[in-house]
């Protein structure tokens, strides 16, 4: 981490009046401490939830799992074990394909702390897999950043088989498939309302 320089004193008119402090004579001429640098190190052993474990194990075999809500069949990916709209346990797992479309995206020109592997600029996008009803963040590559668009169909580019593991890093990025785009009006979170209407008009809530 970079050193934070200590700035000069603020002009007197910008500092609130404090209570005058009467220092004991023996320390009146001692130079005050301007800053204290305290390294803090804390270690945590994170253990994934049951749903996350299932997801990561399947992911190591290039399978993408989502979970289905018992309330209205909505499919969430990655699976969280609960439907966040209502707190109902959602542990039915479903297999999803590794292709979908871009719901939205941005082109980032900043490096991410700890990700020196990412060339800048890079495209991060909300990937909506076919069969899933929410998106998740993923990298889009394999085309110029300027060519990425909402509705663009993509598929996963996986790590080589011998590098797969039960980690979140198995998909290197998502690349365009070249198929016709999903129309913008049907892309991303807009798809759900259309799906509900086609199913006979629930309110989706």
């Amino acid at each position, binding site marked *: 981490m970079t050193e934070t320089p200590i700035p000069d004193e603020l002009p007197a008119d910008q500092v609130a009046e404090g209570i005058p402090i009467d220092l004991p004579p023996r320390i009146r001429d001692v130079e005050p401490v301007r800053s204290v640098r305290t390294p803090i190190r*804390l270690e945590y052993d994170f253990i994934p*939830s049951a749903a996350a474990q299932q997801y990561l194990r399947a992911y190591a075999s290039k399978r993408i799992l989502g979970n289905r809500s018992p309330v209205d069949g909505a499919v969430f990916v990655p699976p969280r074990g609960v*439907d*966040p709209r209502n*707190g*109902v*346990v959602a542990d039915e797992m479903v297999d999803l394909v590794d292709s979908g479309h871009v719901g939205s995206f941005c082109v980032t020109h900043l490096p991410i702390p700890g990700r020196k592997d990412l060339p800048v600029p890079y495209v991060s996008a909300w990937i909506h897999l076919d069969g899933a009803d929410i998106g998740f963040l993923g990298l889009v590559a394999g085309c110029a950043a300027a060519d990425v668009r909402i509705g663009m169909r993509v598929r996963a580019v996986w790590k080589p088989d011998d590098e797969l593991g039960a980690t979140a890093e198995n998909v290197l990025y998502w690349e365009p498939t070249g198929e016709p785009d999903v129309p913008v009006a049907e892309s991303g979170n807009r798809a759900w309302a259309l799906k509900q209407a086609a199913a006979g008009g629930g309110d989706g809530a």
Partner: protein
Amino acid sequence: MREVAVVSSAVHQVEALTFTTDVQLMVPLINEARSAIGLTQADIGFTCSGSSDFLAGQGFSFVQTLDAVGAYPPISESHVEMDGAFALYEAWVKLQIGEVDTALVYSYGKSSPGSRRDVLAIQLDPYTVAPLWPDAHAVAALQARLLLESGAVSAEGLAEIAVRSQHHAVGNPNALRASAEATVAGLLSEPVVADPLRASDLAAESDGGCVVVLAAGDRARSLCERPAWIRGIDHRIDAHALGVRDLTRAPSAALAAEKAGAGDDRLDLVELHGPTTSQEHILATELGLGADTVVNPSGGALAADTLMAAGLVRIAEAARRVSAGEADRALAHATSGPCLQQNLVCVMEGE
């Protein structure tokens, strides 16, 4: 003051929640507390929770836990980075205004992934004390040393508190440390961990969560046969620096109890959030408890101490017993900060 009562609660505490995330822990607990009185989230007027990012090792850690509540359609909801007892206080205040009649309060903490005693060192003055890394056991031991040397209590007296906790905890599914066989002599023969405190003087650290549902007036009566009415609730804080106050005292606990009207009538039982025997002793002194008041029938925080929830658990344990008819008037207490710096007192009555 508007009549507000605890109408439902749920507690779950274990030694370590291994494959369970905060969300997975809270889903069944929140559902249990709501459905026990036939409520869904749509019936809840205000939701408030307590938790800590530093404990979780994650910034904004409470955001994910909202999944367990069910926050769509949108809800009126807030969060304090404090023990759930203070979240309950905020919910109680909201109910006083009169716009809503029910509130859902929850809090949780998982200490097992990290080192709780080191995490708590980061509560201390960041410029002059925290850099020394006095862990939570050491800080509590300083206070215990002063307490023993003041003559207010002996080592045997502290061991008696530990024994009583272990006896009471027998049969409590949410207690980690329970034994009908514990004796003063037996505990005093164990080695000290942070002199003068032994392992039995320090709380059994637990992972877990707690949910409490509050309701006002006739709504409470319609939801629960014998609501635990909150007759008074207050919290106060003392100075932070360990050297500027008498660590054998907890004036904020006494003041909160006074403001909450604790002494207005006899107390059948109290649940004290004392993470050490020495602190439980100080609290009992500050509250001026009578000989016929049962202290910590659940075993108290010594039997199981879920950081960020232990105070709310005290309220739940006391309320449950009031509603069950085991007590007519009860006091629940919560603490925060080093050496009982901040204290909350809640006085409840059956009708």
